[in-house]
């Protein structure tokens, strides 16, 4: 499979492998791949682990995965861009995920987003200029019984209002 790389790309692969050899996280990732016996159908599992370790999927990381799983880089990049869960950009210090499922929407999740966008000048999918807070949206996290739900740094918070959301983000920004 690697034969498809032209010469400069070969150099790049070597550079990525050199970089990887000095980074512990790459080692953990490789152990994870080994657990899946380097199976190509475990690509999504591997990318999950990679995102968990690195926070987002940068190009070098994707290239590393493609070399190790013996997959064309186009396939790895294609999968990484297809699924919403994978982030290709570095995220802010904190993440604020507003659920936009139907129940949350009907109960005013859009107003929460509006309020955050206006106050902190950040649109869904963006990070504030000071790199503190990333505003993201989710397509239903299944917490419809306690809508509208917002996930602050992985913690689901029930029955959010625009005011309580602004207060939480304010705390992060002021720190």
């Amino acid at each position: 499979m690697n034969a498809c790389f032209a010469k400069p790309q070969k150099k790049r692969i070597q550079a990525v492998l050199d970089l990887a050899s000095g980074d512990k996280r790459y080692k953990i990732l490789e152990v994870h791949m080994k657990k899946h016996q380097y199976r190509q159908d475990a690509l999504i599992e591997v990318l999950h682990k990679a995102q968990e370790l690195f926070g987002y999927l940068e190009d070098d990381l994707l290239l590393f995965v493609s070399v190790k799983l013996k997959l064309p880089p186009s396939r790895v990049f294609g999968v990484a861009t297809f699924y919403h869960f994978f982030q290709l950009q570095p995220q802010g210090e904190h993440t604020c995920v507003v659920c936009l499922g139907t129940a949350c929407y009907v109960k005013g999740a859009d107003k929460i987003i509006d309020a955050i966008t206006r106050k902190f000048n950040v649109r869904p999918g963006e990070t504030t200029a000071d790199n503190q807070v990333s505003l993201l949206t989710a397509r239903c996290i299944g917490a419809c019984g306690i809508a509208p739900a917002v996930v602050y740094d992985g913690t689901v918070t029930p029955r959010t209002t625009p005011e309580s959301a602004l207060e939480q983000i304010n705390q992060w920004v002021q720190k």
Partner: protein
Amino acid sequence: MILNDLLQIKEKEQAARKKIVLRCCLAAGCMSSGSKGVKEQLEKAVAEAGLQNDVEVRGVGCMKLCCEGPLVADDSNDALYVKVNSKNAPSIIAALKGGKAEADQTDPHAPFFANQFSIVLANSGLVDPERVESYIAADGYQALHEVLHEMTPKEVVETMVKCGLRGRGGAGFPTGLKWGTVAKSAGAKKYVICNADEGDPGAFMDRSVLESDPHSVLEGMAIAAYAVGADQGYIYVRAEYPLAIARLQIAIKQAKQMSLLGAGIFESPFNFNVDLRIGAGAFVCGEETALMSSVEGKRGVPRPRPPFPAESGLFGCPTLLNNVETFANVPTIFRKGADWFAKIGTEKSKGTKVFALAGKIKNTGLLEVPMGTPLRAIVEEMGGGAPDGGAIKAVQTGGPSGGCIPAQHLDTPVDYESLGKLGSIMGSGGMIVMDDTTNMVEIARFFMEFCMDESCGKCIPCRAGTTQMYRLLDKIANRQATARDIEKLEELCDLVRNTSLCGLGQTAPNPTLSTLRFFRHEYEALLLPDRHNPNGNGSVKHV
């Protein structure tokens, strides 16, 4: 592991049961309201009161009334405490000794609970989802034993045909027929896949089942695998459900340790392994061919059928694909018999259906009712109607693939055919109630935006059609459209519905079409004047 071992575990578990069991909900809804801390406080209070020998604090799955969480049930006093927090939790223990509980209570015999008929949720809120022994004590894995030792695969399929169960993922395909087709397909390797990619926004039944009773799904899959001749199963679960994933991992590990999964289950020649596959946020992966493509580690793009997965599915092998709720029904069907199951529900839709009731309604949460229950009984009697005295305007079923059922049709019985007649679908079971403050054009636009974002881009009608429909809806919502735009929208709906490759595109126009059918006046109230409509309605205040 033989039957005796299973019965022994059951007896041991029942003998170890303490006099009083306090059940504390540890499903995702209550967890985010702090139920973990509540459970710790309860345990601490039990220890402080010296009641360790009499009182067990058990972490259980969903207790259904999610809006009032965290929930704690005390069966000895027939009490259900709501919105418990760490502060008032110790008073619940004090109440066991004649004190007064400070936590609020709700009536556990209110219509919301009393009118439920539980098959899928029978164990939910009772068994500890993180202990297989707890499931075994509730007669778990007995159906699998009986199937493996007393039935041939053919008899299993016949039972499934006889019980009349239909796929709970939304389309309602007869489950027995599907099992039969996969069983007949030639192939040395076959797969069973459980679709737990509950992408429909506003639905959380599958999440609750996986969090509350994961073993029932595993047992159902094992029975299915025996029937069709598969030895490998996958559960494809959304990454958005971390708790469900964790509980499934625990369940699979425990089942393997007890040889309830793996090689030679119950000392029979039957082998079955289950692996988890975690999704990565793509609604289209709920479609079966897209899901299999994702399990193979590729982009979740659907392909034309035939060949159907029953003939050529995962890795080109015959594959049985069912929804979580479908599998969760299976153990009970074999324990209680196909005839028992076939008596529940309506003529064409057998059994029960779990609904996730949410939106502008008093009681939000999970409910399971027999098929054919009128919508009114669900939303008004059990759900308690709109909060703050508002009026229910419509009920949305089936998510982005379904439609809005207006209030005047609330007496419709809930079954596959009746909902279809109203331009909606049963869907996976999400039920969002909207009151008179909800703008139906905005709802249609919301769902179209969802479909536009989630379209995988493979076929043009869906990729381009949803975008154009969204633009038209946006134009209408912003009061910039004319009557001609509504006509154009209807034409496009028809085109996309009939020419898209997979279910996502084929059903994407449903929310728009059903709101146009029942709430056309709301669209027309937003129009600008044009040649055919010289006065326009754009200046009329929209209600």
